[in-house]
């Protein structure tokens, strides 16, 4: 498993983007924590930035990287290697280097300023989000041959998860405000990994009191250990399902 993975990680490190990304995350998290006197507040601001930046960088960087890798993939595919092995090595290389960048960039500062269970959960969700968006970008690239189209698709997907999905949910809430939608909202939040991560971390902070009745229902479910495990499981599904589909597609792709 390790040879192709090794070459991909070396290549990603040689490409300085990931190093800048790490540095950027480090500077942002460090400044946020030193500006706020209350570390919980710092954590909250950092959460909002992480939920925006981490998916964006993960999906765009992976998409561009996979397209630039097409020569490398072509070279490997006529060697005695399994296609599945090549594709999964590519996934592992991207997932490991982006999660590692997050761990160094944000993980260190969170561990210094907020070494609590909440801080740990935030580090975990940040890493999971990186991996999820690598998996989604791989699904996008395997079905699109054209590079420009593929990158456009990646940006649209990110927009959908970061903004459009919330807009649709709000619209739904207003339209059906006479009905009890709290239980349904919990299911719907599972369809967006960014929202699910946000809820998982927010409920650990005391601001969930501001979220009204829905917040109370959420706290009853996601606040418990069982709810936490369920949300981690759903986040893991967001990695596994796109990865399985993209691997299946890659195995019969013409190169």
């Amino acid at each position: 498993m390790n040879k192709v993975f090794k070459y991909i990680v070396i290549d990603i490190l040689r490409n300085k983007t990931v190093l800048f990304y790490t540095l950027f995350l480090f500077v942002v998290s460090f400044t946020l924590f030193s500006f706020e006197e209350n570390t919980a507040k710092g954590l909250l601001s950092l959460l909002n930035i992480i939920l925006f930046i981490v998916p964006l960088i993960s999906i765009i960087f992976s998409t561009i990287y996979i397209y630039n890798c097409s020569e490398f993939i072509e070279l490997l595919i006529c060697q005695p290697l399994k296609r599945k092995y090549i594709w999964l090595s590519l996934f592992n290389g991207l997932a490991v280097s982006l999660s590692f960048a997050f761990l160094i960039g944000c993980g260190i500062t969170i561990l210094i300023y907020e070494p609590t269970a909440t801080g740990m959960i935030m580090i975990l969700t940040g890493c999971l989000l990186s991996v999820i968006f690598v998996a989604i970008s791989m699904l996008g690239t395997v079905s699109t041959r054209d590079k420009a189209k593929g990158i456009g698709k990646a940006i649209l997907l990110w927009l959908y998860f970061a903004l459009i999905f919330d807009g649709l949910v709000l619209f739904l809430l207003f339209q059906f405000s006479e009905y009890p939608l709290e239980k349904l909202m919990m299911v719907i939040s599972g369809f967006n990994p960014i929202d699910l991560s946000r809820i998982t971390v927010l409920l650990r902070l005391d601001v969930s009191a501001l979220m009204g009745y829905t917040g109370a229902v959420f706290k009853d479910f996601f606040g418990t250990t069982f709810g936490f495990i369920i949300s981690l499981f759903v986040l893991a599904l967001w990695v596994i399902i796109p990865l399985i589909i993209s691997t299946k597609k890659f195995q019969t792709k013409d190169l």
Partner: protein
Amino acid sequence: MIRVNNISKSFSKFKALDSINIHCEKGQSIALIGPNGSGKTTLIKSILGMVVPDSGDILFKGNTIKKDFHYRAEIGYMPQIGRYPDNMTIGQVFDMMKDIRKAKVVSLDEELIQNFGLDKIYDKRMRTLSGGTRQKVSAALAFLFNASVLILDEPTAGLDPLSSEILKEKIIKENKSGKLVLITSHT
């Protein structure tokens, strides 16, 4: 050695291969000749498993190549347009390929690397290479692992007459030592 049974492949509406049957044996030297777009490269890529045929079957030494990948250790392939990672040097590309195929390789054949003088420009990046030098790298890689089958897709296109001669001599030499050589050309 290689038996192609009734394979067909279409790219949306365009039918590239229509029920093709081929049988190749050890020590043969076979040329695939045809105009542009007649499916030569598609056939070669199907044998290599890069293109998946719509129907039909390909046997390598009696075993189907579907879901198999080990057979590719016995094939040296030189693509029509060699594409390599841009920011690697020639030396790194050779080292990487040796590393990836190491377990199965007994002896390396570095004759072409020397004859083409590639060892003198090992630290040149792939992105800076001319089309001809790229072809030389592709050729050297195809012969490097002493594979028993050589598949060369328009090997001399883009090479200067001198290098072209070196390559031709090498192909004849390997064919005489009992290797199966498959060459495509449009002339």
